[in-house]
C-alpha cells in the first residue's frame, strides 16, 4: 500500500476483429474470444508465462457454464496460471468499469498490473428451457419412487419444451435498447439526416484509420478474419437514407439498421499497470487513466434510458474542476447515432443542465472534429462487454501518436447507466 496515489499507466490494448453475429465467429464461444485477446496482449507485450495481479473481464450474454469466465480465460491463455481472474459485468460498461477498478487498485498500491477485457457473442446464445420445464426436470432428478416420478411428470404439456432465448431488452419496460433510443430521439428531436451523417462519418473514419495502419498493432487477425466485417467504407449517405426504420414503423421514426449498431461478436483487452511495473518490463506507457465515474438514471420513470452518460460526465467534470471543452479528443460510444446526438444536445441545453444536472449554465458544445476521430461502434461493431476496452485502447494510442493531450470517454449501458473516464498523456 502506498502513502499517496500512484499514476495508472495504460501500456496498450489488443483486440480481435469484430464480426457481425452469425458470420465468421458463429461457432466461437466467449471463452475462445476472451482467451484470444488476453493472448493478444501477451504476444504484443511479450508476457508469455507472466503472472499478472488480476484480469478483470466479463460478458453480457453468458452461459451458466461461464460463471468463472475471466479465470477460465486466464487458464486457457499463455499467462501464468497463478493469475487471478475476476468476472464482472456492467452491461456495455463492463470493460471500462474493469479498467477503472483495476486503476483504483493500482493507484492505491494494492496491485501492480492487470488486464481489463470484455467479450460478447450473440451467435452463441445461451438458449434454455423455460422455468416450468426446468423445475420439472429438477423434480424428476430428485424423485426416488415411481410415484414421485409420475408426480413430477404430471401436467406436462409439449408447450413447456419451447426454448427461451435471451432478449436484448429491458425487463421492466419490455422495450429494446433501440426502442428506448427511438423515444429519446423523438424527445430530443434528432433528425434522421444527422444520424445518418454520423454513421457515415464513423465508417469513413474507421476505414481511413485501417488504411493508414492505425489499427495494425491494435487489431490482431483471428480465425481467418483480419478486419472488422461490419465496416462499410463504400457506403453512402444516399444508401443510408433508404434504409427503413427498425424500432418503430411510425412517421416520426428515425433509427435504422445503418445508424444503429449491429449485433456483433468479438472481444477486446487493455493492459494497465503501475509505472514501476511498466519500467521493470521495459514497456513504454501510452497514456494514463486519470479518473472515472458511473451514474444511473431513472428510466423506469421516464428518463431517457441511454442518457446516463450526461450525468456521469457532468459529475466527473465537477469533481475534477475541468470544463467539457478542456479535452483534445472525445470517444463517445456510438450505441446509436441518436444516442450520441441526444447526449451532445443535452450538454448544450440550458434547461437540461439546470433542471437535471443542477448546473448554473450548460456544459456547452464540443468541437465535432474531435469526436471519434477514427470512427467508433457504428463502424467497427459493438460486442457489448468489449467496447470499453476497445475505446480505452484506441484513445491511448491516439494520445501516443499525438504526443500529448487529454481525452474523454463516455459509454452508455443497458439498465440506464453510464460510465465515463479521462485518459491523459502529459
Amino acid at each position, binding site marked *: 500500500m502506498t502513502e499517496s496515489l500512484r499514476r495508472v499507466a495504460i501500456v496498450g490494448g489488443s483486440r480481435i476483429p469484430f464480426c457481425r453475429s452469425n*458470420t*465468421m465467429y*458463429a*461457432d466461437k464461444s466467449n*471463452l*475462445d474470444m476472451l*482467451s484470444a485477446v488476453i493472448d493478444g496482449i501477451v504476444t504484443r507485450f511479450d508476457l508469455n508465462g507472466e503472472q499478472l495481479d488480476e484480469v478483470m473481464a466479463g460478458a453480457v450474454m453468458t452461459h451458466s457454464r461461464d460463471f468463472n469466465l475471466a479465470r*477460465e480465460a486466464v*487458464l*486457457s491463455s499463455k499467462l501464468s496460471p497463478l493469475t487471478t481472474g475476476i468476472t464482472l459485468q456492467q452491461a456495455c460498461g463492463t470493460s471500462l468499469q474493469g479498467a477503472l477498478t483495476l486503476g483504483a487498485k493500482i493507484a492505491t498500491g494494492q496491485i501492480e498490473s492487470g488486464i481489463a477485457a470484455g467479450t460478447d457473442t450473440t451467435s452463441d446464445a445461451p438458449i434454455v428451457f423455460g422455468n416450468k420445464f426446468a423445475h420439472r426436470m429438477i423434480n424428476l432428478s430428485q424423485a426416488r419412487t415411481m410415484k414421485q416420478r409420475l408426480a413430477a411428470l404430471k401436467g406436462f404439456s409439449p408447450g413447456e419444451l419451447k426454448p427461451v432465448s435471451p432478449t436484448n431488452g429491458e425487463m421492466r419496460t419490455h422495450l429494446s435498447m433501440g426502442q428506448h433510443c427511438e423515444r429519446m430521439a423523438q424527445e430530443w428531436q434528432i433528425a434522421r439526416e444527422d444520424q445518418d451523417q454520423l454513421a457515415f462519418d464513423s465508417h469513413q473514419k474507421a476505414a481511413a484509420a485501417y*488504411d493508414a*495502419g492505425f489499427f495494425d498493432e491494435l487489431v490482431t*487477425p483471428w*480465425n*481467418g*478474419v*483480419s*478486419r472488422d*466485417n461490419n465496416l462499410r467504407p463504400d457506403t453512402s449517405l444516399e444508401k443510408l437514407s433508404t434504409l427503413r426504420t427498425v424500432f418503430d414503423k411510425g412517421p416520426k421514426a428515425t433509427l435504422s439498421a445503418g445508424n444503429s449498431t449491429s449485433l456483433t461478436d468479438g472481444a477486446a483487452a487493455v493492459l494497465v499497470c503501475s509505472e514501476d511495473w511498466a519500467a521493470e518490463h521495459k514497456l513504454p506507457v501510452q497514456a494514463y487513466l486519470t479518473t472515472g465515474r458511473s451514474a444511473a438514471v431513472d428510466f423506469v420513470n421516464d428518463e431517457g434510458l441511454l442518457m446516463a452518460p450526461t450525468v456521469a460526465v457532468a459529475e466527473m467534470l465537477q469533481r475534477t474542476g475541468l470544463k467539457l471543452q478542456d479535452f483534445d479528443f472525445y470517444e463517445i460510444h456510438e450505441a446509436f447515432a441518436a444516442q450520441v446526438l441526444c447526449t451532445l444536445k443535452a450538454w448544450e441545453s440550458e434547461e437540461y443542465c439546470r433542471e437535471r444536472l443542477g448546473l448554473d449554465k450548460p456544459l456547452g458544445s464540443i468541437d465535432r472534429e474531435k469526436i471519434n476521430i477514427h470512427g467508433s461502434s457504428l463502424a467497427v461493431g459493438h460486442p457489448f462487454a468489449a467496447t470499453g476496452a476497445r475505446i480505452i485502447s484506441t484513445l491511448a494510442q491516439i494520445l501516443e501518436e499525438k504526443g500529448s493531450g487529454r481525452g474523454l470517454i463516455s459509454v452508455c449501458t443497458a439498465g440506464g447507466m453510464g460510465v465515463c473516464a479521462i485518459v491523459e498523456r502529459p
Partner: protein
Amino acid sequence: MKETASKNTIFKHWKLSTDIDNVLWLSLDREGESANSLSLEVLSELSTVVDDLETNAPAGLVLQSGKPGSFIVGADVREFDDYEDAGLASDGINQVHRLFNRIEALPFPKIVAIDGICLGGGLELALAFDYRIATNVEHTRLGFPEIKLGIYPGFGGSARSVQQAGAYNAMQLMLSTRNLRPGAARAMGLVDELVGPHGSLRWAARRAVKKGRKSRKPGQLKRLQNFAPVRTQMARMMRKQVAARANPEHYPAPFELIDAWERYGDDPQRMMAEECDRVGKLITGPTSKSLRRVFFLMERLKAIGKQTDTSFRRVHVIGAGVMGGDIAAWCVVQGMEVTLQDRELKYIEPAMKRAKSLFRKKLRDPNKVNGALSRLQPDVEGKGVSKADVIIEAIFEDVDAKRKLFADIEPRMKPDAVLATNTSAIPLDEISSVLKKPERLIGIHFFNPVAKMPLVEIVYDKKSDAAQVARGAAFCGAINRFPLPVKSSPGFLVNRVLSGYMAKAMSMHLERNIPIEILDKAATSFGMPMGPVELADTVGLDVCMKVVTLLGGESSKREAALLQEKVYAGELGKKSGKGFYVWEKGKPKRADNDSSQYALEEITESLMQPYFEACKAVLAEGIVEDADVLDAGMIFGTGFAPFRGGPLYYLKQKGAEQ
C-alpha cells in the same frame, strides 16, 4: 507428484513420476532433440521401464510427451541406414514387437495422452495401450507416413490399426499416408476421447485411469471387413487404386502391405510376423533407401525456409494473370492478407473467381471461405505497396515494363519489405539495375499450378543481399513451399533441365519417328510422373516454345520450329484441347502402340540423357549449392522418380555399380 529420483538418474529420455493415486506418469522428452522419435536408445530405456512395471505394478500408467505441443513423430529415420542386412533388420523389428506386446499385457489401466504430432511408431506405441486421449486442436495430427519412406508400419501398426479401426479405414490410412485430424481419428476409432482447447489432458487421463477405461473395438460390420472373401475383393480394389499412382516395381511397400493383409488380415500375430519379414526386407531395399534420402532432402529444403524468424502478414502481388492471381490466392489460403494489383479491375476479376474456387476446395467451411475472400483485395491503385511485407511482381515478360514498375514502387515500399520478381526468362540484374538499391531484388519463381507444386526457386545474383535471400526463403517457408536458392541464369534449374528433356523427346519423335506414346511410356517406366510429350502439352506449347527458343539455341532449331508450327495452328496442348495429343476431359488420348517393337530401355536412356547432362551442367556452374539440393529441386519441382533418390544420386549409384 513425487519424483522417483532413482529412476530419473538412469534415464536420458524418459521422466517418471508417481502421484498420490499411485498412477505412473511416463513422459518422453528425448534428450538433445526438438521432437520425440523412437530411437534404439529410447526403446531400450523404455524396455527397462517396462521391466520395472512388470514387477511393481502401479495403479495405472499414463504415457505423455515432455515436449509441449508435440507427441512422437515416429521411429528415428536416421537409424534406418544402419541396417545393412534384412535379417538383422527383422530381428530389430521383432524386438520392438516383443516390447510393445509386453506393454499391451501389463495388467493395469494404460492411457496415452496425445497433444501434437503423433505419427508412425508413435501411433503404433499408442495403439499398444488401452485408451487414447487426444487434444482437439490444430496442431494435433495422427497418421502412418511409413509408405512414404518405402516401408509400411512395422511396430505392430499393421496389426493393431486393423483391429482398432476396422480393415478398410486402417488400410486406407496406411496406404494414403494421410494425416488425420483428431476428430477424424476419433471417428475411426484410433482415438477414444477428445479434449477441447479449454480442457485438461492431464485430468482426462486421470479420470480414464480411475475408471479403468478401455477403447471400444469396432462393431460387427467393420469386423466383417476382415473375413477372407471380403479381404480378397478389397485387396484387389486396393491394388488397383495404388497401382494407378505407383508402379509396383518401383514402390513395393504398399503392395507388400496389401499382400500381407490379404493373406493374414484376421490374424494379428501373423500380421506382426509378416511385418518382421517384409518390413525388414523393405527397409534394406534400394527404394526405401532412396525415399529416406528424399525425406532428408525435404527437411533440408524446409530448413532453408527457416533461417530467419520474420513473420509475414501482408503480400502485394502485381499482375493478376495465371501466375500472379494464383500466387495471391495461395498466400491467402496460408493466412496472409493480399492486395492484388493490375491495370484495371476487369483484369483482376478472373483471378478473384479462380481464388474463390481454390478457397472453396481447400477451406470448405463457408466461414473460412468468407474470411479468405476478405483477405484478398483487388488494388488497381497499388495502395498495398506501402504496407506490404512482401511484394511479388508477376506481370508479362517485358524487361522495360518491369523496370518501370520497380522504379515506381521502390520509393513507396517499407524499408525491410521483400521485393521479388516471378520472372523465368529475364536476368535479375537487367531489372535490378533500375533500382537505387539493386541488391534488394530477388527472384521468387513459382511453378504452375501454384497450389500443387511445392518447389519455389529463389533467384539471386552476385549483387543480391544475402539477408534478403534468406528472407525470401523464409517467406516461402511461411506459405508452405520448399525454397531452393538458385543463381540467376537462363532457365535456373528446373526449366533448364526440363527444356532439354522435352526438346530431346521432340527430336527423337522427328528424327527417329518414335510415336509420342512410346516416348512417354519410356519416361514413365523409368519413373517420371509424366512423359515429356504429355508434360509439354500440359505446360502449354506456347510456353515450351519460348523456353526452348531461349535455352536451346542452335541445337534446338528443328524442335523450336515444330513447336512454332503447332502454336500458330492454335494447338497449344491441354489448355486448347489439342497439342501433340488430343485432350479429352483433362486426359490425353493415347493411340494403342505396341511397345514391344521398341527397345524401351534404349529409348529411355537417350531420352533422359539431356536431362542428366543439364543437371550436371547446373551443378558444375555452381547455380545450386550442391548435388543434394539439386536432387531435391528436381524431385519436388518436376517429380523426378523419388524412388531413384534424385538424378545425380541415381547417376552416382549407377556409376558405383559399374
